[in-house]
């Protein structure tokens, strides 16, 4: 159970996704700790098939609600709910088909860069994209992270 093993699982299952949120920020240099993996996924039928199969094998269930409530993990749940906040055997996973401030999967992929995470290689939303997403989300915890992300952009541009 770890963020990296979750990433490995998604890659092994051939799921098309881009990492957004805290893990992407960490990959770009943020020292913040996050416990959940946020991804934006492609909504093609074949990708949804692979994602549903993987989530079923991970016993995905909505996070923060009591166990045993009705929950169907299938295509329709993914297509009718733009954001899923899940807990899985591998850890907490948030799924988005559109990232506010950036756009759908294609737009998110355009603003992403490849990250070498050691055992795993994946796409992550770049720092300007993360700033746009945080601004659009507008929640206090997102706005709180903005100065740090903007500082990282400047430090990276200046070579620290």
């Amino acid at each position, binding site marked *: 159970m770890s963020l990296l093993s979750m990433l490995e699982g998604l890659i092994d299952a051939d799921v098309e996704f881009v990492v957004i949120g805290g893990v992407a920020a960490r*990959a770009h240099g943020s020292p913040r700790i996050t416990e959940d993996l946020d991804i934006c996924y492609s909504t093609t039928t074949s990708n949804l098939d692979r994602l549903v199969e993987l989530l079923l094998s991970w016993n995905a269930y*909505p*996070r923060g609600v*009591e166990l045993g409530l009705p929950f169907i993990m299938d295509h329709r749940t993914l297509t009718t709910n733009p954001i899923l*906040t899940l807990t899985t055997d591998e850890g907490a996973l948030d799924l988005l088909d559109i990232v506010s401030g950036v756009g759908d999967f294609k737009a998110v992929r355009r603003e992403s860069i490849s*990250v070498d995470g050691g055992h795993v290689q994946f796409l992550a939303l770049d720092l300007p994209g993360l700033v746009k997403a945080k601004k659009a989300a507008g929640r206090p915890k997102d706005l709180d992270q903005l100065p740090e992300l903007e500082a990282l952009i400047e430090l990276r541009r200046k070579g620290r």
Partner: protein
Amino acid sequence: MLAIMLRRPDTPADGNSPGHARCINNVYLLDLFMTLGQLAVAIQAPPKWVLNANAVLQLAPAYSVQRARVLALTRLLEQAIGLPLKRAFHLAKATLRRPAEPASWRHESPDGIAAVVIDRERFLSDFTVNLSRARAGYCERRRGRPPRKRRRGVAAARHHGVDISLLRESLKHSAADRLRRLDDNAAFARSLKVLAS
């Protein structure tokens, strides 16, 4: 979310349980109530719609999981088949009062010409997803005009209280190293939570 102390909730975890119970230091807390914003997320409606529905249906502004479930179905019936709000609300209440079986609800006109069928499992599944979003992902938005920014980049971050040396230190490592450390930190945070519970 307001928490109420209970001796022990013996509520079944089915679609009709009143709230979310968790135990901290042998005290059971029942997350029965939510904010207007959380309820709006749980029923997939703008907060304005909730306020208007409260006014039309003469409901007290008390936001609970049960209220959210009824309003979610009310909104669905109003939006999907164009039922007037009051009729949709009464139909939703009647529907949710029925026993959990069968898997779908069917309301027929007396002459059998018209019928409304609601997929119970699907409705409650979607409601569970939205309730999870309301509980796990929702934060109240900051009110008022955002502060005017006079600084940018590193200067703004320093003024905000960010330790720039931490950022510089972090940037000295590779992405792989940062992610490996994040994994270690997250595992440690999880173990602390397990100890605390």
